[in-house]
């Protein structure tokens, strides 16, 4: 079962990638990219990485897709970053890139056969964390520092997005999607889907401790539901200067940091958890992180403030 399907999937992924790069229209390329994200999710499932597949489908296909659709709809004609290349340049670039691909392929074929693996090292102390999903254990216990820095990157990117708005709108609302009365179909979707979305997100969040799932996937679904309600005009976009919003954004990093420093005296060091409380602490961190990730993802897709703050 695996071989023909893997071959088919490989061909589809490469064809879609080639199409995205060569198709004439900008918007068609964006649609292609959404399909490409979903195909990649299938590849991740075939690679037995279901956690990554969920993340790729939600963020790579979904969130990036909505973001790029919004941007490509708004984007006027901009000057090319470089002149359209001549035939000779394209040939040289093609040959060089093919060379890069071939070199990587040679490396893939030459990978050492008893492959080096940290799986055993990741499984051995997992009992101490109280978790059943090794990926969650890596994200929140063994390599918690990476996850902490990641949420910081998320916040920095959001600050960057906000800073690109006009000065006079600072603290105002993102103006995305309010170009006219929303279509009834959109309003219907925005009324029907969020209850499902909230249940599914809660399920993914909870099951992430033991099975594939977790805060990123759950947060992306919640952010999508929020964006849907914003697009349909059922929920006004939040003021980017609102206290509550700012608090939600920093809740995750603050809780993470507080528990991390507490580890200095109640466990072995920064970001270490005492064995007896490892799982409750991890769930607490994940819950706080989820709040921040929902807010950051939704607002990054919505874009910088483009309307004056309401008085």
């Amino acid at each position, binding site marked *: 079962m695996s071989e023909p399907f893997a071959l088919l999937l490989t061909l589809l992924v490469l064809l879609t990638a080639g199409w995205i790069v060569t198709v004439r229209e900008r918007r068609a390329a964006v649609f292609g990219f959404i399909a490409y994200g979903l195909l990649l999710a299938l590849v991740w499932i075939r690679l037995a990485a279901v956690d990554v597949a969920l993340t790729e489908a939600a963020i790579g296909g979904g969130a990036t897709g909505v973001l790029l659709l919004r941007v490509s709809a708004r984007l006027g004609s901009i000057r090319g970053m470089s002149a359209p290349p001549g035939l000779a340049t394209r040939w040289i670039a093609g040959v060089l890139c093919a060379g890069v691909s071939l070199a990587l392929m040679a490396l893939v074929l030459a990978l050492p056969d008893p492959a080096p693996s940290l799986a055993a090292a990741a499984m051995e102390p997992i009992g101490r964390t109280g978790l059943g999903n090794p990926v969650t254990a890596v994200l929140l216990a063994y390599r918690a520092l990476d996850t902490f820095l990641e949420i910081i990157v998320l916040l920095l990117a959001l600050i960057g997005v906000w800073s690109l708005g006009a000065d006079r709108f600072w603290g105002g609302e993102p103006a995305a999607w309010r170009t006219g009365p929303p279509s*009834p*179909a*959109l309003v*219907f*979707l925005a009324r029907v*889907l969020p209850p*499902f979305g909230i249940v599914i997100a809660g399920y993914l969040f909870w099951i992430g401790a033991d099975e594939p799932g977790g805060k990123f996937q759950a947060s992306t679904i919640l952010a999508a539901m929020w964006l849907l309600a914003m697009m349909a005009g059922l929920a006004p976009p939040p003021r980017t200067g609102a206290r509550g919003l700012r608090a939600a954004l920093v809740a995750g990093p603050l809780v993470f940091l507080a528990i991390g420093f507490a580890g200095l005296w109640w466990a072995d060091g920064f970001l270490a958890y005492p064995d007896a409380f490892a799982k409750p602490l991890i769930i607490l961190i994940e819950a706080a992180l989820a709040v921040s990730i929902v807010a950051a993802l939704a607002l990054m897709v919505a874009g910088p403030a483009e309307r004056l703050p309401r008085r």
Partner: protein
Amino acid sequence: MSLLADLFTILAVSAGVFFFFAGTVGLLRFPDTLTRLHALTKADNLGLGLVVLGLLPQLGSVLAGLKLVFIWVLVQIASAGASQLLAGLAKRQPEETREEAP
């Protein structure tokens, strides 16, 4: 019993795949957005329904079956809503979407 279940699965999933195929042919061959949408939504919803139905006897638990049916319902809602939106868009800007028939 298990042979019967397998046979049912093979039949239902094959029928589902056939409808997906028909829907995709429609997407590629039909002349404009509305007819393409019609082909896609009709055939794909039925196709997915048949695939889900076919997979049901292969599952170990009722809960897993419910999850599959739930996924089908969600896809129904989402695809109905999305195709409404696309159709509305196509109606508002008919010039752009009209293409030469193959």
